[in-house]
C-alpha cells in the first residue's frame, strides 16, 4: 500500500501542514501545490527584481528542514514549488540539504512548460495557440502586453523522474491533480492508456489538491462539528492498487473525513462533471463511487476515464492596467448612510480633478451585504467598512484615488476609523488568457540534479 499526503494547496497555505503530515504517522509521498493561476505573475515580478528567485521559497524553508527525516524514512516529495524557476528552487533545496548534512539527495526538475519564447516565432518553430474562451480578447489584441505563457504538464514527466530515482520532484506549471496522480502511475505501473485507472488517480488528485478543504477546512456542512481544528489534518490517500483509494487523515490530528467533506471538495471549481479534462485523461465525475466507511475513511472507486485530449492548456499572463483598493470604517450612528455618503464624496472629488480616468469603479459596504449585494436582507449595522476600488490604465489615477480616500478622514462624515494601514497603493493587474496548444508541440524535460 502507498500513502500520498497533501501538505500545501496554494502558496500561502498553512505553514504547519508539511511537518504535521510527516511527523504524525506513516506516509510515502508528500505532495505540495504552490501554483494558483496568477501565482506565476507574482513570481515573474520577483524574478525581474532578482534573477535567483521565481519559485516558492516557503517550500525550501518548510520542507527543507524536514529533509533528514524524509530521507531516513524514504518519503518522496512532489511539488509545483518550482514556479518559473525549478532549477533555482532545486539548487536552493540542495544547498539546504548540504547545510543540514544530508547526502545523496536526488532532486529532479521538470521543464518545458514555458512556451513564451516560442510564441509569434516563424511558422514551423513556433506554437499554434487557439483561444479557450471564445468571448474573450484575441491573442493579437493582448499580444504586446503578454508577459508569460506556460503549458500545463501532466503526470507523465513526474512519473519519469520517479523512475529515474528522484527523492524530490520539482515542477513548474503542472496540472494540480498530476502531483498525486504521478506516484500512482509510478508505483502501480499504470499504462498511459488505462483511462479508468488514470481517472481514479485524477479524482484522488482533485480531492488532495486543495489540502484541508477535504478534511474539515472551509466546511459548510457543519463547521462547528470539526474536531480539534487547531491541528487540522490534511488529506491522505491510501491505495492498495490503482483502482481504489481511501481518503483519510492522520488519526492523531484534528479535522474530519466524511462523505460531506469529500463531496464539497469534489464539487469545487469543476465545470461539466462528465468531462474533467487533464493532460492525462478525461475523468467522468458522474461515475465516482463514493463510500463513507466511517472512522474518517471515504473510499473512491469506479471512476470512468476517456482518452486524454490532443491539446494542452496554456495559461498566459498579460498586463491589464492598474487597480487600487482602500477602506475606511464608519461607526454608529447612521453607519451605512455615512459610508455611502463618503463613497459618493470621494468619487466626486476624484473626478473633479481627474475627469473620468477609471474603466470601472466599485464602492462596497462591508457589513451591509458586500457579499450578497442586492440579495442582502440585513437591517442597519453598527459599523460598516466602506471599500472603494477602481481600475484604470493610468497608474497615477489609481495613486490619486488612494490619496483622495485617505483625505476623507478629516474632511468627510464623522466616526471614521480603521485606516491605520496607510495610503492605498496601486497594484498592476495581471490577467490570464487561456489557450490550447497541440501536445506534440510541447516537450517536457526531466533532469536529475544532485
Amino acid at each position: 500500500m502507498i500513502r500520498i499526503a497533501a501538505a500545501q494547496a496554494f502558496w500561502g497555505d498553512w505553514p504547519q501542514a508539511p511537518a504535521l503530515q510527516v511527523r504524525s504517522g506513516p506516509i510515502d509521498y508528500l505532495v505540495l501545490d504552490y501554483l494558483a493561476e496568477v501565482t506565476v505573475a507574482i513570481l515573474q515580478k520577483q524574478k525581474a527584481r532578482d534573477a535567483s528567485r521565481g519559485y516558492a521559497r516557503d517550500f525550501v524553508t518548510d520542507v527543507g528542514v524536514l529533509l533528514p527525516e524524509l530521507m531516513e524514512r524514504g518519503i518522496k516529495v512532489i511539488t509545483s514549488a518550482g514556479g518559473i524557476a525549478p532549477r533555482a528552487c532545486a539548487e536552493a533545496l540542495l544547498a539546504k540539504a548540504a547545510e543540514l548534512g544530508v547526502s545523496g539527495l536526488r532532486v529532479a526538475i521538470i521543464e518545458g512548460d514555458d512556451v513564451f519564447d516560442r510564441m509569434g516565432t516563424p511558422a514551423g518553430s513556433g506554437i499554434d495557440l487557439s483561444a479557450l474562451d471564445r468571448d474573450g480578447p484575441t491573442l493579437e489584441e493582448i499580444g504586446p502586453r503578454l508577459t508569460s505563457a506556460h503549458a500545463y504538464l501532466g503526470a507523465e514527466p513526474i512519473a519519469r523522474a520517479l523512475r529515474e530515482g528522484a527523492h524530490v520532484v520539482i515542477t513548474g506549471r503542472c496540472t494540480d491533480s498530476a502531483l498525486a496522480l504521478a506516484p500512482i502511475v509510478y508505483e502501480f505501473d499504470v499504462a498511459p492508456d488505462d483511462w479508468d485507472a488514470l481517472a481514479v488517480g485524477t479524482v484522488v488528485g482533485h480531492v488532495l489538491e486543495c489540502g484541508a478543504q477535504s478534511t474539515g477546512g472551509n466546511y459548510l456542512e457543519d463547521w462547528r462539528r470539526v474536531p480539534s481544528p487547531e491541528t487540522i489534518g490534511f488529506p491522505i490517500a491510501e491505495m492498495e492498487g490503482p483502482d481504489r483509494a481511501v481518503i483519510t487523515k492522520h488519526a492523531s490530528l484534528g479535522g474530519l473525513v466524511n462523505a460531506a467533506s469529500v463531496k464539497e471538495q469534489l464539487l469545487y471549481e469543476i465545470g461539466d462533471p462528465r468531462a474533467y479534462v487533464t493532460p492525462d485523461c478525461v475523468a467522468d465525475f458522474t461515475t465516482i463511487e463514493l463510500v463513507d466507511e466511517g472512522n474518517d475513511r471515504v473510499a473512491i472507486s469506479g471512476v470512468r476515464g476517456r482518452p486524454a485530449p490532443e491539446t494542452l492548456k496554456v495559461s498566459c499572463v498579460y498586463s491589464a492596467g492598474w487597480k487600487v483598493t482602500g477602506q475606511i470604517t464608519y461607526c454608529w450612528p447612521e453607519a451605512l448612510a455615512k459610508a455611502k455618503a463618503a463613497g459618493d464624496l470621494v468619487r466626486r472629488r476624484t473626478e473633479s480633478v481627474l475627469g473620468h480616468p477609471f474603466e470601472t469603479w466599485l464602492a462596497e459596504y462591508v457589513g451591509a451585504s458586500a457579499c450578497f449585494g442586492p440579495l442582502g436582507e440585513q437591517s442597519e449595522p453598527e459599523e460598516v467598512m466602506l471599500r472603494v476600488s477602481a481600475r484604470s490604465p493610468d497608474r497615477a489615477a489609481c495613486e490619486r484615488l488612494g490619496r483622495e480616500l485617505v483625505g476623507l478622514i478629516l474632511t468627510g462624515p464623522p466616526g471614521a476609523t480603521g485606516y491605520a494601514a496607510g495610503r492605498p497603493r496601486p497594484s498592476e493587474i495581471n490577467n490570464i488568457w487561456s489557450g490550447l496548444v497541440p501536445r506534440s508541440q510541447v516537450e517536457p524535460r526531466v533532469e536529475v540534479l544532485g
Partner: protein
Amino acid sequence: MTGSPRYRLFVLAHGRSGDKGDTVNIGIIARRDDWYEYLERELTADLVHAYLEPLDIGRVERFELPNLGALNFLVHHALGGGGAVTLKLDAQGKTFAQALLRMPLTLPDDLANTVLAHWGERLPPDCVLRASD
C-alpha cells in the same frame, strides 16, 4: 398552506463555490441522499438564474451528479471579467454557494417534517421564515 413556514435551501443542502475565469461554479449537495430527488426536480437552472439575477450574472447551466447527490451550477459572466480583474471583495466567487443556499423554499409537508426531524434542536433559526416575517 399560508400559515406554514418557508425554509432556506441551506436546511436541505450544503455546498461550495469557486471561480473558473469569469465563471463561478456552485456545487449544491443534498444533506441526505433521499433529498436529492427533490433538489433535482425543483432547483432548475431557470430558478437559480432568476434568484441570482440581481447579482448581474449571465446564463446559468446545470449538471447533475446523482452519484454524489449533488448538482453543479455554472454561473457565467459572474465576476466582472474574472478573478484577476474584478474589483469585488469576493473576487473568487467564494460566497456564491452561501448566497444560493439562502433561497427560501416552500417544502411539501412530508419533506418539511423530515427536515425538522433531521435537524432537531440544531435547526438554524434564521433558516426558518415564518409567514409573518
